[in-house]
C-alpha cells in the first residue's frame, strides 16, 4: 500500500498508479479489495478509493454536477419523454432531413460527412430554430428580437435579479446584456408556462416535467458568482501550471465533487446504484435535464448560445462521433469568439482563455470531453496565448477564427482525404471488408474504394443499443455496395470469410492502444485469432501522449436505462423497476481499449504506421500543431 496522499495539498504531483487519498470527512480509506463489483452496493456512500490518477489535458479540472433531488417517480416518465423527443431531434437536425423516411432510423446526425457540423455554425440556422421551437419553448429568433427591443429599458425587478450574480466583475455593457437576456428569458418562460398550462389537459407528462425546472432557477443564480470568480483569475494560474497535467477529476472523490458541483451549469442527477469499479467516472440520470436546459438558453451569461446549443446536442446524443463533436465544438467557439467583445479592463487573450475555460467546463458537464476535443482545445488555447498583444480586438478575433478554420481543414478534412486514399490502396478486388459500428472515415474509405472501381463486399457488424451501423448500412446500400449486416454476436461466424477489418478510433494512446466504441476490442480480437489484418483509420490529431492500460481508468458511462430496456419489446422489460433494487448495478460502458497486438496497421495522415510508431508521431508532430 502506498503512503496516503492528500491531492489538494500538492496538486502538482503527477499521480500514476493506485493511490489512496485520505479525505477530511472520511479518514477510513478502504483496502483495494473492496473494488470488486459485487461489494459495490454496501459502500455506496463511503467510497474513497480513487483508482488511477491520470494526468489529462489541463482543462478538465472544472467539471461536475449537482445532484438535484428529483423524485424518482417523476424523473422516469420525464426521461422517457425526452428520449422520445430526441428521436425527433434526430429527424430535424440530421442532414438528410429532406428525406422524410429516414426519421425512424437510429441515424447518427453526423452521417460520415460533416455537413451538419458546418451547417450549425449559426444559432439562427433553421436547424436551431426547429429544435428550440420543439415542445412549446422559445424560438431563438424571437428571443434575439426581444433582446434588441428591450435594449434601453431595464426594469427594476430585473436589476435586482441580475445584479446579484454579476457583481463588480462585469463591465456595464456586459451587465446590460445579461439583464436583457434574463428579462427576455423570463418573459418567455412565462409564455412557455402558460403554453404548458394550456397543454396540460392533453399531455400529462408535460406537467411532471415542471417541478424540477422551477427548482433549478434559484440554484442557478446562487451558483453563478462562483463560476464568475473562477473564470476571472483562472488564466494566470493556468499558465503557471500549464506543463503539469492535472489529475483527471475522480468522481468518487467526495469533496471535489461537492466543490465542482457548486459551479456547474448543468444540473445532473447521479445514478444511485453504480458499479463499484467505475465509481471514478461520472454517471448521471439521463434525459431529464434537456428541456430544463433548453428553456434557459439565454439565461447564461457565462455560456454563449452557440456553445450552449452544442452542449445540448452532446447531451441528447444528437452529435456523436469524435470528429463530429470536435468540429461542432470548434464551430461554436468560432461563433462565440465572433460575438465576443473585450470588457474595458481586460486583456483580450486572457479574458478569452477564461471564457473558453468556462465553455469547456460547460461542455464537459454535458458529456465528458473526447480526446479529439481535448487536443483541439489545447491547440486553440496555445494559439490564443501565442497571439501578440499588439493586435487589435478585431484582428485577434479574425486570427483566432482563421486558426480554427485551419485546424478543421488541415487536421480533419485534409487528413481524412489522405487517410482515405491510403487505406483504399489496401483494398483489393474480391476482398471482404468488415467494419464495426459507424466510423466516418471508414465509411469514406469504403465509398472511395467503391467509386474507384474496386470490387469488394462489406460486412457491417453492429451492436445494441445505438445501432449506429444501420445508418452506415443504409448509406452504403444506397451507393450500391454489396453489404452484409450482422450483430456482434455473430462476429466469430462471419470472420472466417473476411479478408480485412477496418475500424475507426476515438483515440490512440502512446502504447498503441486504440480507444474506440465499445465492442471494437472484441471484433479486433476475433479478427486477430482468425489472422485477419486489422486496419485502424485515425487522424493524427486524435493521438494522445498518455498511456492507457485498460478500459477502466478512462472511460465513459452511458445511460444504464438503455441497456436495461429493449425498445419495442414490452414483454422483456424485466428490469423496469431496477432503480429500487439495491443489489443490482447496470454497467453501460461507451468505450473500450484494444491492445496493440490485435492491430496490424494504423492509417493516419502521416502514412501507414505500425501501432508501435504512435509515440514517434506524437513526439515528432504533437508539438508541431501547437505552434
Amino acid at each position, binding site marked *: 500500500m502506498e503512503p496516503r496522499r492528500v491531492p489538494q495539498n500538492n496538486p502538482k504531483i503527477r499521480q500514476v498508479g493506485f493511490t489512496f487519498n485520505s479525505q477530511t470527512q472520511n479518514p477510513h480509506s478502504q483496502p483495494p479489495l473492496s473494488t470488486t463489483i459485487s461489494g459495490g452496493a454496501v459502500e455506496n456512500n463511503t467510497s474513497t478509493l480513487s483508482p488511477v490518477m491520470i494526468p489529462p489535458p489541463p482543462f478538465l479540472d472544472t467539471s461536475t454536477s449537482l445532484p438535484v433531488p428529483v423524485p424518482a417517480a417523476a424523473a422516469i416518465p420525464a426521461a422517457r419523454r425526452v428520449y422520445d423527443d430526441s428521436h425527433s431531434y434526430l429527424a430535424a437536425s440530421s442532414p438528410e432531413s429532406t428525406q422524410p423516411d429516414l426519421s425512424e432510423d437510429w441515424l447518427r446526425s453526423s452521417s460520415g460527412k460533416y455537413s451538419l457540423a458546418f451547417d450549425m455554425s449559426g444559432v439562427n440556422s433553421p436547424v436551431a430554430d426547429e429544435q428550440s421551437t420543439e415542445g412549446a419553448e422559445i424560438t431563438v429568433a424571437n428571443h434575439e428580437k426581444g433582446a434588441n427591443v428591450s435594449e434601453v429599458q431595464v426594469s427594476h425587478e430585473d436589476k435586482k435579479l441580475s445584479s446579484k450574480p454579476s457583481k463588480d466583475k462585469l463591465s456595464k455593457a456586459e451587465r446590460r446584456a445579461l439583464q436583457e437576456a434574463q428579462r427576455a428569458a423570463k418573459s418567455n418562460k412565462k409564455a412557455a408556462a402558460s403554453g404548458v398550462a394550456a397543454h396540460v389537459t392533453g399531455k400529462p407528462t408535460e406537467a411532471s416535467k415542471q417541478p424540477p425546472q422551477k427548482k433549478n432557477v434559484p440554484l442557478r443564480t446562487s451558483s453563478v458568482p462562483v463560476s464568475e470568480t473562477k473564470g476571472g483569475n483562472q488564466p494566470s494560474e493556468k499558465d503557471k501550471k500549464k506543463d503539469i497535467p492535472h489529475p483527471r477529476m475522480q468522481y468518487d472523490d467526495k469533496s471535489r465533487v461537492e466543490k465542482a458541483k457548486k459551479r456547474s451549469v448543468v444540473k445532473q442527477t447521479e445514478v444511485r446504484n453504480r458499479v463499484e469499479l467505475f465509481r471514478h467516472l461520472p454517471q448521471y440520470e439521463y434525459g431529464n435535464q434537456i428541456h430544463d436546459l433548453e428553456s434557459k438558453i439565454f439565461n447564461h451569461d457565462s455560456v454563449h448560445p452557440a456553445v450552449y446549443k452544442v452542449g445540448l446536442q452532446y447531451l441528447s446524443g444528437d452529435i456523436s462521433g469524435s470528429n463530429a463533436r470536435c468540429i461542432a465544438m470548434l464551430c461554436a467557439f468560432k461563433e462565440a469568439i465572433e460575438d465576443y467583445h473585450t470588457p474595458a479592463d481586460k486583456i483580450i487573450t486572457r479574458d478569452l482563455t477564461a471564457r473558453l475555460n468556462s465553455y469547456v467546463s460547460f461542455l464537459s458537464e454535458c458529456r465528458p470531453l473526447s480526446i479529439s476535443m481535448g487536443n483541439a482545445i489545447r491547440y486553440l488555447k496555445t494559439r490564443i496565448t501565442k497571439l501578440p498583444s499588439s493586435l487589435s480586438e478585431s484582428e485577434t478575433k479574425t486570427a483566432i477564427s482563421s486558426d480554427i478554420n485551419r485546424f478543421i481543414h488541415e487536421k480533419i478534412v485534409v487528413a481524412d482525404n489522405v487517410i482515405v486514399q491510403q487505406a483504399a*490502396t489496401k483494398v*483489393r478486388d474480391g476482398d471482404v471488408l468488415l467494419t464495426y459500428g459507424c466510423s466516418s472515415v471508414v465509411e469514406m474509405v469504403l465509398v472511395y474504394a467503391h467509386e474507384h472501381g474496386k470490387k469488394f463486399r462489406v460486412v457491417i457488424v453492429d451492436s445494441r443499443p445505438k445501432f449506429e451501423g444501420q445508418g452506415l448500412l443504409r448509406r452504403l446500400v444506397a451507393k450500391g455496395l454489396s453489404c452484409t449486416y450482422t450483430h456482434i454476436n455473430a462476429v466469430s461466424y462471419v470472420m472466417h470469410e473476411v479478408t480485412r477489418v477496418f475500424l475507426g478510433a476515438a483515440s490512440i494512446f502512446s502504447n498503441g492502444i486504440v480507444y474506440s466504441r465499445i465492442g471494437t476490442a472484441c471484433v479486433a480480437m476475433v479478427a486477430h485469432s482468425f489472422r485477419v489484418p486489422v486496419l485502424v483509420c485515425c487522424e493524427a490529431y486524435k493521438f494522445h501522449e498518455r498511456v492507457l492500460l485498460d478500459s477502466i481508468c478512462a472511460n465513459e458511462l452511458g445511460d444504464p436505462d438503455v441497456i436495461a430496456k429493449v425498445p419495442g419489446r414490452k414483454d422483456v422489460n424485466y428490469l423496469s423497476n431496477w432503480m429500487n433494487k439495491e443489489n443490482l448495478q447496470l454497467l453501460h460502458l461507451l468505450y473500450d481499449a484494444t491492445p496493440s497486438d490485435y492491430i496490424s496497421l494504423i492509417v493516419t495522415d502521416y502514412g501507414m504506421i*505500425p501501432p508501435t510508431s504512435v509515440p514517434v508521431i506524437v513526439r*515528432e*508532430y504533437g508539438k508541431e500543431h501547437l505552434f
Partner: protein
Amino acid sequence: MWYRSPSFILDNQEQEKFLLRQQLDQQNDDVLNPPPPPSMSEISIQNPNPNISAYYQTRAAHHAVVTSDWLAQAQAAVSGGVTGEDTVEKVEEDDRVVEKGESVIEEFNSWRKQPDLAEAVAAIRALASVIRSSKATTMMELEIELKKASDSLKSWDATSISLTAACDLFMRYVTRTSALEYEDFNSARSRLMERAEKFGEISYKARRIISMLSQDFIFDGCTILVHGFSRVVLEVLKTAAQNKKSFRVFCTEGRPDRTGLRFSNEMAKLDVPVKLLIDSAVAYSMDEVDMVFVGADGVVESGGIINMMGTYQIALVAHSLNKPVYVAAESYKFARLYPLDQKDMAPALRPIDFGVPVPSKVEIEKSARDYTPPQYLTLLFTDLGVLTPSVVSDELIQLYL
C-alpha cells in the same frame, strides 16, 4: 511542415489516379477491345521480360546461375524472338523520348556491371552523375530533372524494392536541405553534389559497418543457418572467420536458383565448416541451429522483411523453436511499403526449372519472394545500428516525413 509531409504519398496517389483515369477512359473508348491490365502493360514497357522480374535477372547474371529456362530464353533471343535484348533496346528508345531517362539508365547499368556493387548503390551513383552532368540553371529545374531520372530508374525495374527505396531515399536525403533556398545556384548545386557523394559513400560502406556490428552476436562454437545468397551475410561471416571465430554454417539449397550452393562454396573457400541442406530439411535441423541469419530484399515499414522465398517458413520454424532470427540489411533497403499479408505486394516472378517437363495444366507458383512479419524477427543489423523491428518505422518516419 504539415503540408509537405504526405506529399510523396500524394504524388504517388496522383499518379495512380491518373493511370486509373486513363485506364477508365480507354475502357470507355473500346469496350469491345479491352486493353491488358495496367500493371502488365506498364511492366512490358519497362521490363525486358514481362514474366521475369528484372531484379532476379540481374541477380542471376551476377551469380552466373544458368538455368535451362534462362538458356532457352537466350536462345530464343538469338534466334530473333521478341524477348531479351530486343525489348531492352525498345525500352531505351522509349526512354530517349523522355530525354534524361536514357542516360541515367545507361549510367546505372554501367555501375551495375560490377558484381560487388549493390543495385541500390549503383542507382545512387547514377543519380549523383545526373546532378554532375546536369545543364540546369535553377534549383527547380535541377530538382525536376532529378525527379525524372529517379522516376525512370524506378520504373525500369518496379520489382526491385531496394532500387525504389534507394531512389526515394536519395531524393529525400539530397534535396532536403533548408540551406538550399538561400544560396546561389552554383553553391547549392555543389552542396547537392556533396550530399550525393556522401550518400553514395555511406551506402557503399554500409556492408562493412553491418559486419562490424554483428560480430558481437556470433559466438564461438555456434551454428548459423543461412538462407539464400546475401552479400551482407557473406561479409558478416567473412569478417567473423577473419576474426578467428569458430562457427559452423548450415546453408539451405535455395531452389530454384541454387543460391545456397554458391554460398556454401564461398564458405568452403573461407575454411568454415559448412553443411548443405535441402530447403525442406530446415525444421529437421533447426534444433542444432543457434541462430538464423538472412539478408533482405527490402525492409518494410512494419519492421518485417521481404526476402527470397522460404525466409518466412524458416522464420516460423525458428520462432517456434525459440531460435533468434537476425536480418542483415543496409538502410537503403528501408521502403515505405506496408504489406499486410503475403499477397499484398507486387509479385516478382522468376523462372523455375523442375528438371522434367511440367504438364501445361499444372500451375506453377513463380513468385520469388515472401514477406516475413516483424514478430518472427529478433533483430535487424543495419548501418544505422542494431535495431528491433519496431524501430524501422521510426527511422522511416524520420527519413520521409
